[in-house]
């Protein structure tokens, strides 16, 4: 390979060309990842602010800061932003894009142009969905059950078009990653040596490819139901509203695994790295992701136990629902036992991994509780469900994503953030999160329905606590945003491998990475977590551990 200035080690993907155009038209997966990071962070911020408004409104029964109509639109928009614009793309599109090719030892994803296209498609989708705000009211929650959703104004047309477009972006990302994992692995990188993050992104991509087209056709039919009254879902025309729910959940349940599987991958990497130990049960952990991805398609009806669907299907869906707990449990237990006889270091990313084990398990166990037919009848559409899904989405995905963000931040930016602030913020997020959402379990079990603007006074204590918690949570998140941004300007320069990881993005390239990722295609000789085979690395000074000399020889 001809040596240019680009190989001197000081040149990296961030500074080799600084023009705006070189960013907007880049085909570099790393830059696309960064652009996604900015976009989804903004979506998260917007969704989070709406959530704060929801919480303030619920501090007291009756009107607190907004009218009923405003509230109903606020939580709907909160959910639409959080689900479609934030959590679905978040980990795959940000970290998957940035890290996956690096971990594979590839120069890029298989289809770089498609990758860029899917970013812009995503932006268009968000824009179209948000234009509903101007056109008319959209309420009723992110599930858009018919016939309510077709009885409201035309805003729904924009939201469904937007979701359709965002779905396209998600499909293209997933497709790209599947091919990349199959076709672009470096020599020596066998399936058994893949980092678990790769396995999880791979499983996620399978779900994205198989499930997302169905939400596409669902919102398309919704669109036609609204414009042409095609009568498939609308009971007034002889349609079946329960059928809409089937369509919706055929996508949206697998989608929850689009949300959580990448998080699993991050946690595996963090657990291995910060325990400096093989992830125990590697094969089980890897294959359980695939198992979850497939089983996830067979349980959607557990959202419909009181919808009037047949008892036969309820029973089948309930049974399979439990089965998902098993591969997930295999993972949880293996993460814990990774620490066994390891050497556990508590840097900020590891704090998130540990918090994740706590919060996600609560979310998971309450999911199992909801899967029990007789119990779900009582708990369905109460705050118990709200608490469940925030425990798995916020407490699962977002906490893991924060861990991953801290872990890869030095690699992405070349800067270290403030570790002390990092730990404080992690503490605030953990404590604030639990105070926000744990009370919701209790009030839900006591009968507090969800999507309620107003409520009976007996629930006020729980709501108050929840609102106070959300402030702590919000403070933690803003603190993170603050010190991460500050680190860009003031942060210490990051070393090659500050955490002592063994995956290729840390051991075989510069920090931040070279524009073409690797100067020489890496040749892999050991598994992603075979620390005992790489003892020599740890004899050197912590942050300079790298196997390849990255400056010209």
């Amino acid at each position: 390979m001809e040596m240019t200035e680009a190989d001197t080690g000081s040149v990296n993907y961030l500074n080799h060309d600084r023009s705006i155009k070189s960013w907007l038209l880049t085909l570099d997966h790393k830059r696309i990842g960064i652009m996604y990071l900015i976009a989804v962070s903004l979506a998260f911020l917007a969704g989070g602010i709406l959530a704060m408004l929801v919480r303030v409104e619920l501090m007291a029964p009756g009107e607190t800061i907004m009218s009923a109509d405003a509230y109903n639109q606020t939580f709907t928009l909160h959910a639409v932003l959080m689900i479609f614009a934030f959590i679905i793309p978040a980990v795959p599109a940000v970290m998957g894009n940035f890290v996956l090719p690096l971990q594979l030892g590839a120069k890029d994803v298989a289809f770089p142009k498609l990758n860029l296209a899917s970013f812009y498609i995503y932006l268009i989708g968000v824009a179209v969905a948000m234009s509903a705000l101007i056109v008319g009211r959209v309420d009723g929650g992110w599930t858009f059950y018919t016939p309510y959703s077709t009885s409201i104004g035309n805003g729904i047309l924009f939201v469904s078009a937007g979701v359709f477009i965002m779905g396209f972006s998600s499909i293209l990302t997933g497709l790209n990653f599947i091919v990349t994992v199959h076709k672009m692995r470096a020599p020596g990188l066998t399936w058994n040596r893949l980092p678990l993050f790769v396995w999880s992104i791979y499983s996620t991509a399978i779900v994205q490819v198989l499930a997302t087209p169905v939400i596409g056709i669902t919102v398309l039919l919704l669109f036609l139901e609204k414009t042409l009254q095609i009568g498939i879902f609308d009971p007034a025309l002889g349609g079946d509203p329960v059928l809409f729910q089937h369509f919706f959940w055929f996508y949206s349940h697998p989608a929850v695994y689009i949300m959580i599987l990448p998080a699993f991958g991050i946690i595996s990497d963090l657990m291995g790295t910060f325990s400096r130990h093989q992830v125990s049960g590697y094969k089980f952990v890897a294959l359980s992701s695939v198992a979850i991805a497939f089983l996830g398609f067979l349980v959607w009806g557990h959202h419909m136990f009181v919808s009037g669907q047949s008892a036969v299907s309820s029973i089948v869906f309930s049974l399979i629902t439990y089965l998902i707990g098993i591969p997930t449990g295999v993972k949880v237990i293996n993460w814990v036992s990774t620490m066994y006889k390891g050497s556990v270091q508590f840097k900020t990313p590891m704090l998130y991994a540990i918090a994740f084990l706590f919060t996600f398990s609560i979310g998971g166990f309450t999911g199992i509780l909801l899967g029990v037919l007789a119990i779900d009848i009582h708990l369905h559409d109460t705050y118990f469900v709200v608490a469940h899904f925030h425990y798995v989405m916020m407490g699962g995905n977002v906490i893991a994503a924060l861990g991953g963000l801290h872990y890869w931040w030095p690699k992405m930016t070349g800067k270290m953030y403030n570790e002390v602030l990092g730990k404080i913020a992690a503490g605030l997020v953990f404590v604030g999160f639990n105070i926000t959402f744990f009370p919701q379990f209790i009030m839900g079990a006591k009968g507090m329905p969800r999507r309620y603007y107003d409520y009976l006074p007996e629930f006020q204590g729980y709501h108050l606590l929840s609102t106070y918690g959300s402030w702590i949570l919000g403070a933690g998140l803003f603190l993170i945003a603050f010190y991460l941004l500050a680190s860009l300007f003031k942060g210490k320069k990051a070393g090659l491998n500050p955490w002592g990881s063994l995956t290729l993005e840390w051991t075989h390239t510069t920090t931040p990475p070279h524009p073409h990722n690797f100067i020489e295609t890496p040749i892999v000789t050991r598994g992603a977590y075979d620390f005992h085979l790489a003892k020599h690395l740890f004899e050197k000074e912590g942050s300079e551990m790298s196997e390849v000399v990255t400056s010209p020889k």
Partner: protein
Amino acid sequence: MAHEHSNHPAHLHHHFVSSEQQFDAAKMGMWLFLVTEILLFSGLFVAYTVYRVWHPEVFAQSAELLSWRMGGLNTIVLLASSFTVALGIHFAQKDNKKALVINLVLTFLLALTFLVVKYFEYSSKFEHGIFPGANFAPHGISHGVDYAAYNVPFAAQFFSIYFVMTGIHGFHVLVGMGLFTWITIRAIRGDFSSEYYTPVEICGLYWHLVDIIWIFLFPLLYLI
């Protein structure tokens, strides 16, 4: 296109190691895309199945209003176009540029024929007030068929499904025509050879899928 290696063929992108890898990747990507198409259509097949199981008589009766002759003709047309695409790839592999171009043009023309037939079918339906959804109001008599007699509950569902399915399918045909225009131009320009004909193969795969969907639509909507 920037080339770092002089031994890289022109079509090879820098992040691939070999043409073979690039070809395999493209093809695998296409198969994945086809799967998403299948699942997209599956929603409509589900809607069809559900309503058919609920109202078999209505569906059987409504199907009588669709012309199996036109549907059958279109089936043959699409099959022929699949055949010409397959021939096109064959000739691309054999470095026979002229035959490749001819087959691509034929495919395009067959796709056009399909849409023209479809146009006549649609307009003969609209004429008698057979519209998707709430506007469904069959009336009039032609060829001894009294359309009004078909205005029974759930017939509207059948025709909604018919229009949505064939409409989306027709949209795919349209996209296919665009693709073949592009491919034909490139073929005339001489972009393809036995070494590199990935775009032809990829578009071919897409086209075959469009054909397969029709293979199912035809009996389900027109015949049974």
